């Protein structure tokens, strides 16, 4: 790079420059190496130990919610679930043993226009300061109707199960009622309700745990599950 045949005075400067270039290069090289080293260290932390992982892990619902069931709620065959989050919110929906799933073709339509108002039209707004007052959410009893689920043969009124403020209904069910057939316990949920602590305690005593629910169903007729995970 540098012509070494130059006279001594003239080579002094280029030599220095060469040194600087070299220093820069070395610096850049070490910065790159540092970065690579850090990336490697980071990667080591990220990769899990496969042997410690279960073949089938618990689902997000199983990990984050406590599951309760209401068999034959207000009507035989009307099995519903209540998934309760530690923060108090309850997701309600149809249990896999619900009569609607026994009808041929399963669920064909969902209508939220029941009772005094169309549940799907409601929009809860406003900031809330206390967990008990959710803006303009409506307060429903446990037997208040949420929606009507229709099959080819029949229609079923689905009710809240839990007394509290209605925060949300699953509007996707209107256009995609089949969600109930494919995953009633997840994407096919019906609504989200927030009960007051006292109200929850009251209703909790009338609900069954998963274990007890399975037993109660087995004791009666054995109903195959339509929903596979």
């Amino acid at each position, binding site marked *: 790079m540098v012509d070494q045949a130059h006279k001594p005075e003239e080579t002094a400067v280029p030599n220095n420059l060469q040194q600087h270039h070299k220093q820069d290069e070395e610096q850049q090289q070490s910065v790159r190496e540092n970065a690579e080293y850090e990336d490697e260290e*980071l990667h080591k932390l990220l*990769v899990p130990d496969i042997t410690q992982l279960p073949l089938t892990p618990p689902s997000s619902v199983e990990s984050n919610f406590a599951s309760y069931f209401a068999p034959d709620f207000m009507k035989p065959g009307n099995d519903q679930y209540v998934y309760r989050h530690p923060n108090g919110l309850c997701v309600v929906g149809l249990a896999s043993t619900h009569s609607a799933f026994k009808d041929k073709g399963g669920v064909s339509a969902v209508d939220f226009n029941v009772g005094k108002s169309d549940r799907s039209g409601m929009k*809860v707004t406003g900031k809330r300061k206390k967990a008990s007052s959710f803006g303009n959410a409506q307060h429903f009893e446990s037997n208040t109707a949420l929606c009507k689920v229709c099959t080819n043969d029949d229609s079923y009124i689905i009710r809240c199960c839990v007394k509290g403020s209605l925060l949300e209904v699953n509007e996707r069910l209107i256009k995609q009622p089949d969600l109930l057939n494919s995953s009633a316990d*997840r994407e096919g949920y019906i609504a989200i309700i927030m009960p007051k602590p006292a109200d929850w305690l009251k209703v909790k005593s009338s609900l069954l745990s998963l274990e007890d629910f399975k037993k109660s169903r087995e004791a009666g007729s054995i109903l195959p599950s339509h929903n596979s995970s």
Partner: protein
Amino acid sequence: MSNEVESAQVSDATEVTQLSSSAGMESHAGSCDEEIPLQLLNDAVRSLPYHVVKDLLSIGVCSRCVLRIFGTEDHIYCHPLLSQSMIRSILEEVTGFKSEGDFQLCSVCLGILQFSYCDGKEEMVKMESPNDMASTISELVKTEGHQIDGFSLEVSVPQLILENESSLLLGMKKRDGSEPWFQERVLSKCVSVKDVLKIAITKPLETLLDVKSTSSGCFRIRLTYTHKRASDNYVEKNQGFKRRRIGTGNGLHNVNDETVITSKVCSDYSTNETTSVTGRSSNILQDQDPSEHFRMPIDKVSEPCHLVYLCYRTHIYLCGRYLKYSRNVSQTRWIIDEERMGEASVEEVIGSNILPMCRGDNYKFHAAGREDIDVRMLGSGRPFLLEIQNARQVPSEETIKEIELKINCLENKLVGVKNLKVVGSQGWTLMREGEAEKQKQYCALVWISRPLEDEDVQSISLLNDMQILQKTPIRVLHRRSPLERQKIIHWMKIERIAGSSQYFLLHLCTQAGTYIKEFVHGDFGRTQPSIGSILGCRAEIMQLDVTDVKMDSF
């Protein structure tokens, strides 16, 4: 009247020297230090209208107040060698005033310029010279162990004093408003109590502390005078005042509550004016509406003011990036029903290791965003700002390196720190700027309900700047408004894991504010699209790590 004054001034030099030697100087006989100040004082006193001075002294105005009202140059009566009694004697000698003997608190400044006050122990303190006050302050600074390179002096006096002065000056104006001495001196050169006190104390303080005084330093010395009588009048008016929130509720971790309580107590009292050294407070007569404050005669006071000394350093800030290696450590102290959540908090690990090195009172932790307790913060780390209140010492670069090393070598290896350094108040702006805008990078351990195919890896890597719609996740829906938030997933990359067909690592870079967990499992279908919906199966998130928080300035 003015003739009398002139003739007095013309009297001879010998009288002056006689006065100075007889005016109680026996204890200093032989020392020539006070001679010049005494001389100047004598001359100054002789320039005053004697009958007016006598009137003022008779209604209980103290010597320094008399001198300042006439706009006497401050070095003349604020000289540390001139004691209260010296000044008084000269005034009395020259003007022929006979005092009643006993010490009386000034009816205007309530003893402030007589360096008399009631201390924290409710004991009366009476100092002769401004040096004594400077000594007390200097002792306080040294006891607290403050390391300083400058100070800023602030004085706060009760409104009552301004009222007293206002009444007095109005009274004088009524009687002698047309006199030349009133026009030329009182009206335009009257110096305020606060300014006199500050001038008197500043130089001796500079000497004792061996630093200079500045107008807006980081180290504040505050003298707050309050008077009981004034507070009775003003308590009702101050009910509406905003009080400073104190306590652990807003994240303050108190080591020493006294400093904070003192300030709170001060705000309970009458409205005080506080100005710093430069800029004399404007002349009362020019500002006030006379009809409001006229009150003659001034009542004599028997109680001195209550004085509180406060010295503190304004907030210092340390910034850096933190790493969180544990899935059981929260970012900030988290206590529910008296039980701590998680085994430690980033805030406490960092704060408790830095606070003692600064010898501060308490700290406040601020970070650019946050991660859940079970999410690790790795890679570049997350920017944070630590506010230290009343640090006795600003940590040096070496100390900072020590702190960093100490935290990073802690046995339990829960938290790490990078790029720690002291930063000015602009640290705030840098933080706020970076928070909402920046992108975050994550690594999630995902499980799907069927084996992973090559097409999946391909299709995921092709999605760039994909928009998703997230309803407020159920896990935070109890405390956040129900909204639908549009977020962007900038890029994604699947990394297969050797030995597993259904587990894989998902690397992704998203817009700030995206809920990653919900993006993976779908949150009952309330986040659309989700990894599950994109791959057409059920997806679960097992672990999440933040691998990069992009913020240039940190």
